[in-house]
């Protein structure tokens, strides 16, 4: 008689137990591997360390693109794999920037390395992910210099070129156009250079890199002043000409010099006064590599801080104003200096 197959109610599904065991081992191994090799997908971008990027940036005069990320940050990982995994974006980054992936390890290890701390502070990183482009000549600058307001000039130049001018011709309601223009500008500011905060799609990253490219190609503003060549100066620093000479010393980057460009050079009142009564001369000093000529001029007029204004009057000692000068104080200074001549 054939015996029917009996299965106990308490039969243990051994296959399921073995599968669970294998999967658990796989999961543990996979997570341990991920922990030790967090880069994962973004292999197309040649990431450098902070110190490598610094050396290379100073050599090649290329800006550094910092990508601030954290191992626990899901959107960062997603952005790294989706956006930086795209060949066109990776090529743009490799070609135009020196990319650095800065991983925050404060949660895992209690604190970050001093280099990471310094870079996060410099780029004012409050959340992850954050992208920040720092030009080669601002690598040692503080947060205010990196986020300089001087870029307002460049921003306005771009904002002016936004494509809503044609709407006026098409007879569209002026309020609508104005609102749309405001929204465009706000949108532009939201993705302001040099920092870009939050999860970004590949299109966001392309747009951000495009804006950064514009920012780096635009030279700092020289404003509305008709700058001329440096006049011949005698041994005591007096000019050979009879008209007063105004020498403006500004750095090629940095918040104070940028403010000076905005408040003095771009302003109608100050620029017309300078153009009318002085021979203006602009001395642009490189923050990272100042020229010998600029150093000699600074020494000659005993300038201790940049930006600075020097007024040279015939047969009189040079009048020097160190540091940032607002529009109001610049006007007072100029009027007083020019009155002393009269």
């Amino acid at each position, binding site marked *: 008689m054939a015996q029917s197959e009996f299965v106990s*109610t308490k*039969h*243990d*599904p051994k296959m399921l*137990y073995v599968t*669970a065991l294998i999967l658990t081992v796989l999961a543990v191994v*996979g997570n341990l591997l991920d922990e030790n090799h967090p880069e994962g997908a973004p292999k197309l971008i040649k990431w450098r360390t902070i110190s490598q990027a610094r050396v290379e940036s100073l050599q090649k005069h290329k800006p550094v693109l910092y990508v601030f990320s954290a191992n*626990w940050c899901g959107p960062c990982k997603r952005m790294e794999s989706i956006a930086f995994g795209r060949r066109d974006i990776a090529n743009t980054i490799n070609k135009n920037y020196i990319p650095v992936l800065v991983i925050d390890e404060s949660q895992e290890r*209690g604190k970050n390395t001093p280099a990471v701390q310094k870079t996060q502070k410099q780029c004012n990183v409050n959340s992850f992910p954050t992208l920040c482009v720092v030009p080669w000549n601002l690598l040692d600058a503080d947060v205010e210099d990196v986020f300089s307001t001087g870029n307002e000039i460049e921003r306005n130049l771009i904002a002016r070129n936004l494509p809503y001018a044609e709407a006026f011709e098409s007879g569209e309601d002026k309020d609508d156009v104005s609102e749309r223009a405001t929204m465009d500008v706000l949108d532009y500011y939201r993705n302001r250079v040099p920092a870009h905060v939050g999860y970004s799609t590949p299109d966001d990253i392309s747009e951000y890199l495009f804006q950064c490219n514009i920012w780096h190609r635009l030279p700092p503003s020289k404003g509305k002043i008709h700058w001329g060549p440096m006049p011949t100066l005698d041994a005591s620093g007096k000019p050979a000409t009879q008209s007063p000479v105004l020498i403006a010393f500004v750095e090629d980057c940095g918040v104070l010099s940028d403010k000076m460009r905005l408040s003095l050079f771009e302003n109608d009142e100050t620029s017309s006064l300078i153009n009318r009564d002085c021979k203006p001369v602009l001395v642009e000093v490189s923050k990272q590599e100042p020229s010998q000529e600029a150093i000699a001029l600074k020494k000659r007029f005993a300038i201790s801080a940049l930006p600075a204004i020097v007024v040279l009057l015939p047969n009189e000692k040079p009048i020097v104003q160190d540091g940032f000068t607002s529009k109001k104080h610049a006007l007072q200074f100029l009027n007083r200096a020019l009155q002393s001549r009269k």
Partner: protein
Amino acid sequence: MIWAICKNTWNQCLASRVRLGILCLVWIAPILQNTISLCVQHVFPEALYSQSNSVALLVLIVGSGCIGSQLNDGTLSLTLSRPLTVAQYVMSKWFAVFVASSVAALSQLAAEVLVSLTRTPALINPADVLTNGAERVILCVGLSAVLILLSSLVSGVKDLAFFLVLSMVASLCVGIGQLKVDDVPAGWPQLAVSVLCPVCYHIGQAGNFILGPMVDLSSLANIPWSVVASYFAVIATFLSLAIFSLNRRELPYGAE
């Protein structure tokens, strides 16, 4: 799969008015919230569709006490007196819970899409809807397995309390893991924090994953295999443990 057990589980869920009432509230809350933002406040909500938290709540409400209540009233021994194994019983319970919770979660998504269709049709992206729907089902399948184990360990709806306690412990571990060494007095406390914090952090993160097993589908091509393995490991391990524990349990023949 034993259909009778599946049907019994669904009936058990529908029989409780309190459970149905809470389920309706949790189901409608995100839809109401989005509708109020869009129609009354005229503000775009942070997310067009609700996230995993509300889906997890749906699973917990549908599945809590699915085995525990049978343990409690002694009907489990009667069920197992039929020609079926504990493994079949557990698998059927798991299937019933994830199907019911998936139906609830997907219908909630459908309602949210309808609201968005009337107010912000331009923002609807079919790929987003599909991804959100698939993620909901994935969470329902994973979390149901977790709940089945908890329910097999305790009687009644104590599995819900068990789940909440474990969630709090996981959050606490993550919180401790985020302590900064600089915030602690120097000496042995700093040493203890620097050693314990990373361990606590990783335990907390693992706990959070186990209590809400998910696979992020937003980038299908770049899903790490370790996440997929972890997800299936959680399901297989928790179902195995549920079967193992029930097989070694003395089942009562009356109410506990």
